[in-house]
């Protein structure tokens, strides 16, 4: 139960940072060599390595945030995450968690769409004082993405 609550707290902080546009903090939820990947269930089931986003290490995550801020063109939008409780298993010091999510996307004109559903497949470790994601694989239920995916899920 302690593991579940600890992982849930990390996941809620992560979701709050993304939903509140604190994207500069997003890489800090990962270990330095952490892996962040967005893919879809069909690709995962077929063992295909390419999904939608692939960031290996915090440096690549910082690059994505900088690119979103400085380079990429997309309409102002934000997300609202809704998470289930994580199902957590422990192996030594490593926690593995599976967690369902809904992400609504709210455009600047108020248009709101259930943008993504799926599950997080997380590997969480203690990094100094804090728990961090060593791996966060976002498995989207659907192969379809509306218009574009800019902000991380």
């Amino acid at each position, binding site marked *: 139960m302690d593991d579940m609550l600890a992982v849930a707290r990390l996941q809620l902080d992560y979701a709050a940072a993304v939903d509140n546009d604190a994207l500069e903090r997003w890489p800090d939820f990962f270990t330095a060599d952490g892996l962040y990947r967005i893919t879809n269930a069909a690709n995962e089931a077929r063992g*295909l390595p390419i999904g939608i986003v692939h960031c290996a290490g915090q440096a690549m995550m910082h690059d994505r945030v900088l690119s979103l801020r400085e380079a990429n063109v997309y309409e102002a939008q934000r997300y609202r995450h809704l998470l289930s409780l994580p199902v957590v298993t422990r192996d030594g010091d490593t926690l593995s968690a599976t967690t369902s999510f809904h992400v609504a996307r709210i455009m600047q004109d108020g248009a709101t769409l259930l943008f993504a559903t799926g599950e997080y497949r997380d590997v969480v470790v203690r990094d100094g004082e804090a728990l961090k994601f060593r791996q966060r694989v976002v498995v989207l239920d659907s192969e*379809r993405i509306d218009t574009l995916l800019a902000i991380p899920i």
Partner: protein
Amino acid sequence: MTLANDERRWADPGLTRVPYWLYRDPEILARERERLFMGRTWNYVALDCELPEPGDYKTSFVGDVPVIVVRGPDGEVRVLENRCAHRGAQVCLKRFGNAKRLTCVYHAWSYDLDGKLVGVAFRNGVRGEGGMPDSFDAAEHGLRRLNAEVYHGLVFASFAADMPAVESYLGPVIAERVKRVFNRPVKVLGQTTQELPNNWKLYVENVKDSYHASILHTFFTTFKINRLSQSGGILVDDSGGNHVSYSKIEVPSDDPDYDVAGLRSDQDGLRLRDTTMLAGRDEWGDGITLQILTVFPNFVIQQIQNSLAVRQVIPRGLDRTDVNWTLFGYADEDEELTRLRVTQSNLVGPAGYISMEDGCVGGFVQRAIGGSEELDSVVMMGGEGAESQSTRATESSIRGFWKAYRATMDL
């Protein structure tokens, strides 16, 4: 062609003005289905490698018409319309599958892999009552079979029976560039579908538009990933409908500032912390780092550095379009190269550093033209023709699209 609404004319006989009603007119959408997608065009439907075994099938589309791409017992690929000859239901429902027979769930009419009707449930009725009359001839009720050709690993289909071979449809210049990428068997590395809020032609024009590339997509310029010198150009086939846009790095060998990643960063400017993505490999030995190729009307082959993809553009109504992305590598490639393609996949697709803008820009046009249907867009960069050019600051290949479009649509 005469349109019901006389206001909707394409007054300009040339290629530099494109009326906005073309993106909004239901009559045009219907005519596109008839003349373009079900007419004399070759339509990409699958990669050959997606159907390795006899009986393997994939459901796909020609325009918005559902089709089944299936490998027969003889190893040849067939393309059948995915519509039961009985009451019109979709026969195959899954994206991928394997079957000896194709059976409709509605009334269990079943077809062999050539589309021939081989089974009708209760054909002789029940206890001597009901059933099909003697006049029913199964041979007249098969799945409609399309013309199909597998060209260097790409499966093309056409509703027209008397099409020229794919190679001559492409023209020699474009065919060479297709074969450059499809020079040996490929394997799928990932698939995704991007739904766009715009007419399909706006996406195809965008792909053909080499003018916008460095303006809308500022990833490379923001991070000062300037190439030492870049040459390239546009190749357009005689029909206008098929094109290649390419660019090439030429590295002066005596330049001490050149680094392996091909990067030059301004000291004061923004720079990437991780440049793994930019350490490309010259797989084709020709220095070409970007090759975007289109086949009329709606197929794209992409090489951006080492990221390879095919994109199938599917009209879903006047203002909805699906782009089916299939990223791939070569069947015989080493793991390191696959890892490079995985890393470089960040450049492309719905979240791609240099392609996410393509997802929204068509919608910006679609939204803005509602009150301007009698007005035209202006396509004059690089002149008025649709010829090959040695610059990418041109809209020659967009004009090529309209040249082929006008000829095929009789507009």
